[in-house]
């Protein structure tokens, strides 16, 4: 085969600034927050405080892993998270006295997984809008959960499980934090190293070409919601055991916090890019910022303002980077 001289290729110049900005902006922000926190409060840089930050992150962080898949596959967002978290928490506490904590936890996670599978089927296979679908399914699932507990609070009776989760390995790191980190690493490997992960990026970037490349697009889309439902249920189980009390409203606001973390982590709402580790970084950044505000005694309302501003900034940066990258 003769090899003609290859024609010159055109390389889109993305600009050094945007390239470095996209990669290092978040780590730099986290370091800056750590420095700022140390400067403004002497209680900030202590093992006790930072461990608290990690514990607070753990429950929401497990959901963030699932939400990252939803974003990457261009599934917009899963708004049924509060309901699936509640299902996990209510079922583990409600059933543990009759079948034991571990079986109850499994039932809780599986039930949430079923809700996630239904979401995935409606969105991936039936092609419904994700926002509307998860809003509706969340309302339905929460309604069923309320009927199950009769609308009141469920209390747990397994102090041992609680002690295990909040107990510390080597006297420093709480077990729940280790579980969270394990989920992050597993999620990261799933997205970055497996066939399914690669397909997720492809589906989010150009579903049409991906389908034409023999990838089961519908299955990939559905999986993101199945995963998020399952992880939210798992997160709810951990929350229930930790608190030893659960009510139907237990997961309220978790969807918002997860979306904030993913967006701040630079995962594109338009699909096709972002990593679990960056979403984790986004969560860490938001949590550290919140922690500093709490230490400084900032009231809850302005905290919300700051989080909202963060989302807008992160989305604006994403759009600006896309334009610069020459994408449409």
């Amino acid at each position: 085969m003769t090899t003609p001289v290859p024609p010159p290729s055109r390389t889109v110049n993305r600009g050094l600034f945007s390239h470095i900005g996209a990669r290092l902006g978040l780590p730099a922000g986290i370091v800056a927050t750590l420095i700022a926190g140390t400067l403004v409060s002497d209680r900030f840089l202590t093992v006790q405080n930072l461990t608290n930050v990690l514990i607070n992150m753990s429950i929401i962080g497990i959901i963030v892993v699932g939400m990252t898949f939803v974003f990457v596959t261009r599934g917009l967002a899963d708004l049924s998270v509060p309901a699936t978290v509640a299902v996990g928490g209510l079922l583990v506490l409600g059933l543990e006295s009759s079948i034991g904590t571990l079986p109850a936890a499994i039932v809780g996670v599986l039930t949430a997984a079923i809700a996630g599978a239904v979401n995935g089927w409606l969105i991936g296979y039936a092609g419904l809008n994700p926002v509307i679908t998860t809003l509706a399914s969340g309302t339905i699932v929460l309604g069923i959960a309320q009927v199950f507990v009769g609308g009141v609070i469920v209390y747990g009776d397994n102090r041992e499980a609680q002690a295990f989760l909040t107990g510390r390995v080597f006297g420093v790191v709480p077990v729940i934090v280790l579980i969270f980190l394990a989920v992050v690493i597993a999620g990261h490997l799933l997205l970055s190293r497996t066939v399914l992960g690669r397909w997720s990026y492809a589906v989010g970037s150009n579903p049409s070409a991906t389908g034409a490349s023999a990838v089961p697009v519908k299955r990939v889309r559905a999986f993101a919601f199945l995963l998020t439902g399952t992880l939210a249920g798992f997160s709810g189980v951990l929350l229930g055991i930790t608190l030893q009390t659960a009510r139907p409203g237990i997961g309220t606001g978790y969807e918002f916090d997860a979306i904030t973390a993913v967006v701040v982590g630079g995962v594109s709402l338009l699909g096709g890019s972002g990593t679990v580790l960056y979403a984790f970084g986004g969560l860490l950044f938001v949590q550290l910022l919140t922690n500093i505000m709490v230490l400084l005694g900032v009231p809850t309302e302005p905290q919300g303002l700051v989080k909202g501003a963060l989302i807008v900034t992160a989305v604006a940066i994403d759009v600006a980077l896309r334009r610069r990258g020459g994408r449409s």
Partner: protein
Amino acid sequence: MTTAPALHMSGISKSFPGIRALTDVGLRVDAGEVHAIVGENGAGKSTLMKILAGVHQPDAGEIELNGHPAKLADPIEARRRGIGMVYQELNLVPDLTVAENILLGSTPSRWGIVDRRALRSRARAVLDELDARINTDDLVGSLTVSQQQIVEIAKVYASSPAIVVLDEPTSSLSEHETQSLFRIIRRMTTAGIAVIYISHRLREVLDIAQRVTVLRDGRLVETRSTDGISAGEMIRLMVGRDLTDVFPKREVPIGDVVLSVTGLSRTGEFSDVELTVRAGEILGLAGLVGAGRTEVARAIFGLDKRDGGSVSLDGTEIAIRTPRDAVRAGIAYVPEDRKRDGIVPQLSIKDNISLAVLDRVSLSGWVKRGAEQSMAQTKATELTVSPPDIRPRVDTLSGGNQQKVVFAKWLAAAPRVLILDEPTRGVDVGAKADIHTIIGELAAQGTAIIMISSELPEVLAVSDRIVVLHEGRVSAELPRGSSEHDVMHAATGEVSA
């Protein structure tokens, strides 16, 4: 009459990166005349009309309207100067009524509130002038395609244009509907409008137009009165070019039938299509735009559902519902629309190449990164993708190299049947030669190839056999060595003399 023509374009030239679309083209259309423009795909008809519509700016040349020089800087300016365009794809809002669509943009209102009575009566007046029997209150979405087309024409007519361009207006109309469209066109010319009529249907051109301008390879061939010309002569003028040996054909032994398609149908697109391809054979699929070539390819590959027919590989019928089924059976498809169906922009060159065969370089769901890297690198090198580094995002490459990446993806799948849909469209000359070399190489290895191309010389030079589609049906099967004449006759539905 010695009045200035409604439109006088002269010396129009236009180039796009890598392509010279128009060279020194002139066009003169009088008021009250129907003037047809004919030519092969890519002859420059659309570009010329887009210049008239203000979409493109000519590199050289002048446009005069009614004897006055005009600069058509953008589509809004062109519309203001009285140029009305009716494109093949209709620009209507299906959820609005006929009246609302006709007067969209100039909706009569009082204090910002739509004046429904004025809206209705003005739309009615426009439709009556065109002698069109359509209810003004019907939703456009509920109308037939031909009625929608008439609404589109009425919408253009309502802006009182001096010149109306109709681009392939009859491509989806029946004989009867075409006649009522012609009635409307004649009404417009009686009102003094100059009508430019673009069509592949030469009989209709003879029927409706007074003069016809033939374009070929971006140049003006001739403008003739339709009185003294036959369809056959028009074809001769459209084609009339020597076939230069720009696409060297590699002779390879042809084996057994690999793929056979029988009775393939899809409502509204194509029906009862039969084809076979043998190992090592290149089957050309020719036809005009809209004849159903791409649709047939997409249906074979499982991208679109088919309503009937069967696909067999090595004589055994196979069920193809999705591209996944097709790839498993050994069929690959290089799509016509590279941006939409070909590349995944945010993934790297490597990830694009391995996308269709990830499961072949993975172990229980885990991508074996070394195996993937070396497989993708091998394919990229084989296809001379430039630059050779496969880590950057695929959308940093030029169009020709992106196309090579799409080829690489399908070569990695080692298909037995490869369907190529406009494989060299929008690709520079160097990459084009490379792609032809690859196609020859694949045929030599025994791959059965179906190639769709709107470039007739390319089809003729490369194919061992040509199947011609006309309006969704196979109109001819021609052996190697057939002329452009033969293909164009079959493609336009004119029986060969």
